[in-house]
């Protein structure tokens, strides 16, 4: 089905991160990818990932698909308040099914955006921040700010494909003359090194004060911080920002974790758009985290942290994966494409060991090893297709690169749904 002839001038999409690079070429033979062109180090590893032999396990013993699905459905049926979590590396189609399943099982539903960039995506969906696409940035951006973000490590092709180095249609002289890249961070990251003299190093937790000082400078006042950041440097930064014809802030976790809420960001964006023209793009990590936020928002008006109950939907921090595990309010968990035993604080995730867990994942993880049911699914975007939303909100569709014997998470969720 995916032979040479069909592939002529056909590029694949890399689902290794939230950039969803759509210019990937591969060489494959007998459904094994031997070479990956154009992708970054992370993308190549993602696309060439070798899969284990394990297919379906119940209590760590091999079973057939029907048994695994039946066991998963029985766990969900017997639970009063199951948690459905993950889905950042699942397609829109899978996410929409998971939302339906959550409704049907009166589940608590959350994803990684809950302790990540969810608030920013929510603000963008509520038109509280000015969005733009990565193509706009490539073609027009003249002032680019990486704030608490290090795409050189997290999104390796960000600067070369979109934000800094390309010669866009209105930026033919490129980064040497027409773009200014600025890093605001607590350490000199690889991205900050590229920004050279435009690296502004602030102390951990110093972001809100820096925003206030920058707003003061933009308003023509003397910028002050308790950590004595040189006012002259902040005034220089304010002058660069004021001159931006097309500015963008790439907001990362470093910024978000440092703020109590987004109010300082709203204030900064407001004044930046009075003096110049500024957009914001969240540095979404997982390839379809933003898709989850958008799909749930379309269904419920919330981007994450919901609890379905007899057709009603409740929302709040108490329905976040962290608080519901901590308070032990959930009595089973269906984890799709995520490894909370690794990615959550152990002080929280250890509570997963006390409830039955279903792990649906293309690779074995700490979570899958401790799950009652483990279903090894196709690698989304490599072995199964669908659609997703890039970090900037652009929809991207993709087809599988190779075929596999492993079912997609979408196919498995459909079967669980039928059996519940």
């Amino acid at each position: 089905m995916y032979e040479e002839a069909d592939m002529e001038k056909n590029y694949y999409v890399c689902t290794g991160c939230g950039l969803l690079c759509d210019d990937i070429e591969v060489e494959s033979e007998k459904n094994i990818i031997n070479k990956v062109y154009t992708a970054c180090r992370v993308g190549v590893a993602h696309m060439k990932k070798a899969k284990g032999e394990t297919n379906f396990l119940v209590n760590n013993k091999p079973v057939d698909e029907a048994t695994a699905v039946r066991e998963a459905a029985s766990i969900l049926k017997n639970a009063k308040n199951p948690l459905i979590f993950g889905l950042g590396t699942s397609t829109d189609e899978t996410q929409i099914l998971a939302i339906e399943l959550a409704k049907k099982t009166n589940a608590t539903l959350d994803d990684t955006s809950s302790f990540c960039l969810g608030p920013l995506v929510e603000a963008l969906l509520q038109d509280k921040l000015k969005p733009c696409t990565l193509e706009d940035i490539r073609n027009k951006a003249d002032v680019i700010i990486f704030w608490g973000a290090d795409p050189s490590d997290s999104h390796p092709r960000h600067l070369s494909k979109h934000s800094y180095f390309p010669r866009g249609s209105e930026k033919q002289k490129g980064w040497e003359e027409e773009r200014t890249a600025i890093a605001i961070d607590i350490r000199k990251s690889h991205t900050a090194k590229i920004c050279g003299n435009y690296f502004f190093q602030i102390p951990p937790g110093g972001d809100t004060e820096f925003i206030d000082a920058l707003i003061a400078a933009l308003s023509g006042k003397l910028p002050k911080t308790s950590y004595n950041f040189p006012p002259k440097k902040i005034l220089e930064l304010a002058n660069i920002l004021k001159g931006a014809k097309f500015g963008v802030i790439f907001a990362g976790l470093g910024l978000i974790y440092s703020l109590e809420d987004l109010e300082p960001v709203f204030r900064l964006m407001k004044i930046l758009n009075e003096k110049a023209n500024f957009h914001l793009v969240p540095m979404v990590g997982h390839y379809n985290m933003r898709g989850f936020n958008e799909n749930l928002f379309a269904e419920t008006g919330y981007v994450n942290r919901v609890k379905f109950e007899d057709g009603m939907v409740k929302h709040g921090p108490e329905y976040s994966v962290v608080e519901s595990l901590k308070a032990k309010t959930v009595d089973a968990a269906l984890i799709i494409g995520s490894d909370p035993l690794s990615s959550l604080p152990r002080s929280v995730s250890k509570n997963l060991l006390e409830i039955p867990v279903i792990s649906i994942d293309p690779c074995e993880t700490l979570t899958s090893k401790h799950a009652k049911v483990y279903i090894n699914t196709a690698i989304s975007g490599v072995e199964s297709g669908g659609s997703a939303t890039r970090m900037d909100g652009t929809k991207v569709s993709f087809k599988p690169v190779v075929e596999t014997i492993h079912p997609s998470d979408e196919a498995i969720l459909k079967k669980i749904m039928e059996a519940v």
Partner: protein
Amino acid sequence: MDFGSFLSAPEINIKIVTYRDIFQDKAMIENRFGEEYRDRSAILKLDPADLKQLSIKAGDTVILKNSLGKIVVKAEESGYETPHRGIAYMPNSPWSNMLVSDETGGTGVPRFKDISATVTSAKGEKVTELRF
């Protein structure tokens, strides 16, 4: 006999800031239970003055401890030009997560990038294995 092992090792309080690392990410994708992922995750990047105060060299193992747990990781010199005594850096991983508090103030957001711990020489003890 190594009499040094009976002496109490110097201990310092540090704030650990976690970050993403492309090489560590790639190693995780290839094998999250593998040696390379452990070698690139279970590390602590310290200011040279802190290394000196701990009487250890880059490459030695250290014990990181707080009320949430105790892990052994390898100490490295950060290489940053700006001094950062008392602040250390560590790639975000299951190792760093062993020290992250469940105290969130009800927000649902743990302080992944703001970990307080003590650090002391592990006197050759091996890096903590990844398991529950």
